[in-house]
């Protein structure tokens, strides 16, 4: 089964489940039952399943279902839970401060989740296309430090080999800060190579002041500049890939606490119905 047909199949199953839940809710209400209790409990169960995906990832050594399947389940269940939430709230904006906060939290989590799907579907492909090498995020600073050290050595070497401080001066002013930390975050995110092109143009403009050996060293430095840019690119994209979870996961736990409080308030004050 191809990726596309599998996706269509899953969307179809997801839509069928959502439609069944809408129908069930309608029938439950028709039977003079409080449908908000049915949709509410289904919602809680759904949200709990979505939350434990985060816990699943904390135990990679356990022989649980592979994380890729969990993620598929997480995404489709997420859409079903949004339908359930709209059913539960009768698609109305809440009135009280507690309910409004709860409502906003839900949509912040759901919204960040939808953005997360977009991010996780797009950025890995871009990483593969641009760099080709799958770098571990935690190792990028080490490689950057290696490159910085190599460029520093080249700059130092240039002083003795060409008897000129042109490259060393340029290194001190422009290249040292460039190699010291990740650069051009937004340009990498929006796939703009303008900063790199500008820097390379700057490097080439120095060539006229150098002899043959100096130009060779400068060419070598330019290769390192490109390599550094190739490190900054996955760093920026991986930062976004990890960064959106800074919104999604903490808000999920806050949402679950609000949900539990909501259940207590409802059962304590809403009056028990059928």
């Amino acid at each position: 089964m191809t990726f596309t047909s599998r996706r269509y199949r899953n969307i179809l199953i997801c839509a069928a489940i959502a439609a069944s839940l809408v129908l069930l809710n309608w029938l439950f209400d028709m039977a003079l039952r409080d449908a908000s209790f049915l949709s509410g409990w289904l919602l809680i169960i759904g949200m709990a399943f979505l939350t434990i995906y985060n816990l699943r990832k904390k135990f990679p050594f356990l022989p649980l279902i592979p994380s890729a399947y969990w993620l598929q389940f997480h995404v489709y269940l997420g859409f079903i839970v949004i339908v359930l939430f709209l059913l539960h709230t009768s698609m109305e904006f809440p009135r009280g401060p507690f309910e409004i906060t709860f409502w906003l939290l839900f949509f912040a989590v759901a919204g960040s989740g939808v953005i997360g799907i977009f991010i996780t579907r797009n950025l890995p492909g871009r990483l593969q296309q641009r760099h080709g090498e799958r770098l571990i995020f935690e190792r990028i600073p080490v490689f950057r430090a290696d490159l910085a050290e190599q460029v520093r050595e080249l700059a130092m070497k240039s002083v003795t080999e060409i008897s000129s401080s042109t490259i060393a001066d340029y290194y001190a002013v422009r290249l040292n800060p460039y190699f010291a930390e990740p650069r051009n975050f937004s340009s990498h995110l929006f796939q703009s190579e303008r900063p790199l092109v500008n820097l390379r143009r700057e490097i080439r403009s120095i060539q006229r002041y150098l002899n043959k050996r100096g130009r060779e060293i400068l060419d070598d430095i330019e290769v390192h500049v490109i390599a550094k840019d190739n490190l900054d690119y996955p760093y920026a994209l991986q930062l976004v890939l990890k960064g959106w979870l800074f919104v999604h996961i903490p808000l999920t736990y806050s949402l679950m606490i609000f949900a539990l409080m909501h259940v207590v308030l409802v059962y304590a004050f809403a009056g028990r119905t059928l």
Partner: protein
Amino acid sequence: MGLLQKFDFKSSNYERPTLHWVCGNISTGKVCPIGPDGRGQCRASFECEPIKEGDRWSCTRSKSSDGKCKAGPRPDGSCCLPITKCVPVETVRGMRGRVVAWAVSLTIGLLIIATHGSGAVNLLSPGGLTLKHGEVGTKCETCHEAFESGLSGWIHEAFAPSDPAGTSKKCLSCHEMGAAPLQAHSLPRSALDQSALEMETLEKVKVAPVALEFARSLFGSPRKIAEELACTNCHKEHRGTQFDKTEMSDNRCQSCHTVRFASLSMGHPEFINYPYSRRTRVQFDHVSHISRHFEKAGKEKAPETCTNCHEPDDNGLKMKVKGFATTCSVCHLEQITGVGQVGQKGISFFSAPGLDVAELRAQGAAIGE
């Protein structure tokens, strides 16, 4: 340039994805192999821990850290290459864990403030009350008995068994609903059963909506499931001032009713004795009474609430007008009995124009002169 990353065991450390801290020298590329502990404390001491082979100490530095050093261990068996302590750096995973902990703490803190503070009523209320209930007051405990017991009491109440009578107690302290307030339409169960039996024999053809039949077969009829119904089963609150608490769809009504039908025009039972018999109408102008009469002469006799003159009928469905003795007579009895009235007493059924000659003479009027 060639590939930056190597994965062979000699040149690659294993970056555990669950680590919260990494070596502080990561930005210089000189990461120590031992790394920080779980609390973010640097554990670096020496590049290796020499072992004794026979009577000599031997270097154990791993191949990924450039293998055995040239100098070798000191005579006392300690490594000759001490590692400078670093300030470990928190990983993205670690930072995220900290943000989660903060978010959870903040949420719990906010909820504690919301449930214990004086503003709990405003913060936790799910919405405004209907106009009439809003007049009763804005204190939660007016309608919710458990509110005063605080968070622990709420949790206890939430896990307590279902009790329609308890839930509806506060409602019934204001609403007089007859002898069977927790039954549909406040009618005793026997009367409901009797009515259902009569309707079943009366109506042979039942054309109910398929969805309704399906809903009943799936979830059963409320009458058969529960002995008692809480008021909140049909009447919701906190939906704003304009919300109609009595609103209910036709299908929901039919979930209880024995005779079910597709719509009002298709299958509804015949209306018997319609229009229903009712008492003689009395034209009563509320506006003129309230704004004119009650303001002037009858202020002390004026009714204070609707229930001074009105009361629900036996079913609790309609508001009846109370009898003459407790309503009109308070102000109008003397007019009717003729206290201080000239001529004949009482209210005449039919009268022709004329003069009360006897009375006029008694008053000294000049008649016929």
